[in-house]
């Protein structure tokens, strides 16, 4: 059993992130841990895997026991033979150039023999359904493939306990189903698994226990009803085109990622842009936002080609929020970041300042105005990305997977912004893998496959049709009603 006894931790000696936390994970069980952003989930993961206090500074007290033995005197290498941690961002964890090297990395460090390394590498890649990738260069993998690789490279170390920090964040529904299968197989192999997730639906069907962490303490999780805001646009028949793609092709170098795509976004629409990892969703968003120029075809805002419109005019009307929050924070304080767009557009006035203050308060960022935005939690940074992009009332919002790393409160805040923008005669396009969001909030779903639009229509019809053509993973991901 992997257990923590009364562990407390503070990074700065003042704010306690964990307060006398007790948790037990037995071999052969999957424990699901959830909690709001900044509640200490990742910190607990680092404590259990030994990085706190060994390589991360702070005030630590309490003890971690593995199979009854206190690990206080263990080195990181000794603990990591028993407990492995798969962190949030798979890209940062990959340290070699080839898939096979990455999986063999752990066993090589532990000086395993050639035969054993070969066996472990094969079995670990096979466990995540990725043996066919063994000879690929790591930087050419898709987000989902990188996540599989990160898990395989930990499995090859044969840990008794595995901790996964938001493993489903970059996975499409197919990947999530595979993740469930991987975790079930680990259970069968008597591995103890702690899975940290915001989106409970992903792992819940196979979890033995669900725990919740809040204010630094752990309790048993109790279900709370997620409020569904009934979309006022459901019955609206959209007819005013705002943004149009016509016969657009786009390539990165010699690889064509968007093939002859046409679509029109109308006033009042909330569109879920769905599709597997690597199907071209992010590229479509960038094309719609006028951030990439198509190889051929047209992108029109209203009736004017977007390439003929001044950049600032586009910024006024279209806001794009990307996946990684770190890439889109430019200023040194939360407040400066919030009003950056208004400053650039020359629209800093009483009304915009009032709006910015209101947005930050509703995103629970009102107390952090002078904080460096980079010191916020991942979920808070995402909120700031959104609040800072909408202060000037853009008509069109293009959001790339905005719900990743968001707790329930965050999800509700973002959903509110989406419905507000659409009901103010605007339109919102959201890249998402979540069929429940599509059903509850959207009036249109576009499903992309291999850079082309495969399905386009109302959520019920598209999700139903997806099931008909063999994409059953989306209906399997839907929450039971």
């Amino acid at each position, binding site marked *: 059993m992997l257990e923590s006894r009364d562990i407390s931790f503070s990074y700065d000696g003042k704010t306690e992130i964990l307060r006398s936390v007790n948790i037990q994970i037995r071999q052969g069980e999957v424990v699901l841990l959830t909690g709001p952003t900044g509640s200490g989930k990742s910190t607990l993961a*680092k404590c259990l*895997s030994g*990085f706190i206090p060994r*390589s991360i500074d702070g005030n630590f007290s309490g003890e971690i026991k593995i199979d009854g033995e206190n690990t206080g005197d263990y080195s*990181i*290498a000794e603990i*990591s*033979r028993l407990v492995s*941690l798969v*962190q949030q*961002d798979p*890209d*940062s*964890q*990959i*340290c070699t*150039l*080839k898939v*096979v*090297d990455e999986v*063999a*990395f*752990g066993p*090589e*460090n*532990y*000086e*395993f*023999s*050639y035969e054993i*390394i070969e066996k472990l*590498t*094969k079995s670990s890649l096979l466990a995540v*359904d990725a*043996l*066919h990738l*063994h*000879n690929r260069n*790591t*930087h050419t993998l898709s987000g989902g493939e990188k996540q599989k690789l*990160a898990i395989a490279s930990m499995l090859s*170390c044969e840990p008794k306990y595995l901790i996964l920090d938001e493993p489903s964040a970059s996975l499409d529904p197919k990947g999530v189903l595979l993740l469930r299968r991987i975790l079930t197989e680990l259970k069968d192999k008597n591995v103890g698994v702690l899975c940290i997730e915001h989106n409970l639906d992903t792992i819940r069907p196979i979890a033995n226990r669900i725990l919740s962490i809040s204010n630094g303490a752990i309790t048993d999780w109790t279900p709370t009803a997620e409020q569904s805001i009934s979309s006022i646009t459901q019955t609206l028949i959209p007819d005013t085109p705002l943004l149009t793609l016509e016969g657009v092709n786009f390539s990165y170098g010699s690889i064509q990622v968007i093939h002859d795509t046409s679509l029109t976004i109308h006033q009042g629409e909330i569109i879920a842009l769905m599709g597997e990892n690597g199907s071209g969703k992010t590229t479509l968003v*960038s094309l719609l936002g006028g*951030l*990439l120029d198509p190889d051929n075809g047209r992108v029109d805002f209203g009736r004017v080609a977007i390439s003929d419109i001044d*950049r600032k005019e586009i910024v006024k009307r*279209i*806001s*794009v929020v*990307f996946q*990684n929050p*770190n*890439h*889109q*924070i*430019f200023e040194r304080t939360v407040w400066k970041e919030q009003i950056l767009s208004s400053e*650039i*557009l020359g629209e800093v006035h009483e009304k915009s300042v009032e709006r910015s203050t209101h947005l930050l308060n509703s995103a629970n960022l009102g107390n952090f105005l002078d904080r460096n935005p*980079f010191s916020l939690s991942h979920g808070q940074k995402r909120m700031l990305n959104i609040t800072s*992009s909408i202060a000037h009332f853009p008509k069109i919002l293009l959001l790339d997977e905005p719900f990743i790393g968001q707790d329930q409160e965050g999800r509700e805040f973002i959903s509110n912004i989406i419905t507000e923008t659409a009901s103010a005669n605007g339109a919102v396009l959201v890249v998402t893998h979540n069929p429940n969001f599509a059903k509850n909030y959207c009036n249109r779903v576009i499903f992309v496959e291999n850079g082309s639009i495969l399905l386009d229509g109302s959520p019920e019809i598209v999700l139903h049709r997806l099931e008909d053509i063999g994409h059953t993973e989306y209906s399997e991901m839907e929450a039971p009603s």
Partner: protein
Amino acid sequence: MTNQTTIMQNGGRVNPLLKLFMLILTISGILIYPSWRLSSILLVIVILLFPISGASLNLSRNRTKFIIIFSLLLFIFQILVTVNGTVLGFIIPQLNNFGPFLPITDFGIERGLAIASRFLLVVLSSMLFVAITDPTLLAHSLTRLKIPYRYSFALVIALRFLPLFDSENQIVRMAQKSRGIQPEVGGLRKILRTIQYTFFPLLVSSLSRVEALSISMDGRGFGYSENRTYFRKSNWKISDTLIAFGGLGFILLCSMLALGYLPLLSTII
């Protein structure tokens, strides 16, 4: 999916360390004995090695085009600036009382050929080395030279993160564009702001990766022992030793030619 998939362990017939050694020897050789004939012979060999080793020397690619055009410019520039030697003709011939200007001399052509072929040789042999060497195997081979694996791994990590920084840089530029941030150069303050808007996000993203990377590596036993085993490694074969001796012989030959011990041969190459 099949269990029978075999995992390829070794790449290439020649040891990567030997490839590096031969690259250094080739470049040293033509620096010791800078003859245009010798560099041209080596250049032909290097160009022939591209198809033999399965690497592509794509002439239509911008980079290759640039290299060839640059070497031609070097050649022409040397002809223009070298005036001594036997005059073979003039670029601007005599027209009545006008000219002649810009003489072409045999020495100028020789110098031009020497510099251009040397430039092409250095660039193309390095390109060949990069194209046919698996950096991971090279890093692993460096440990044979008693270089601790912690240092040889730095090479692998640097190469791992280069494409990542490149793609992040593009995303940051798109994010700037979406917020209406345009590069400004008017005045120091604006330049500093432009730098801040580009480097802040990149720096923060890099720093956050450092912690995740070190946790990921330490968590898989990096540094667990002074030694580690390697799943993919290249062996040093007898043929490698023979090629290495051949390379040393080449350097000896270049040195003797440069010192004038082989006057007869030096008239040929």
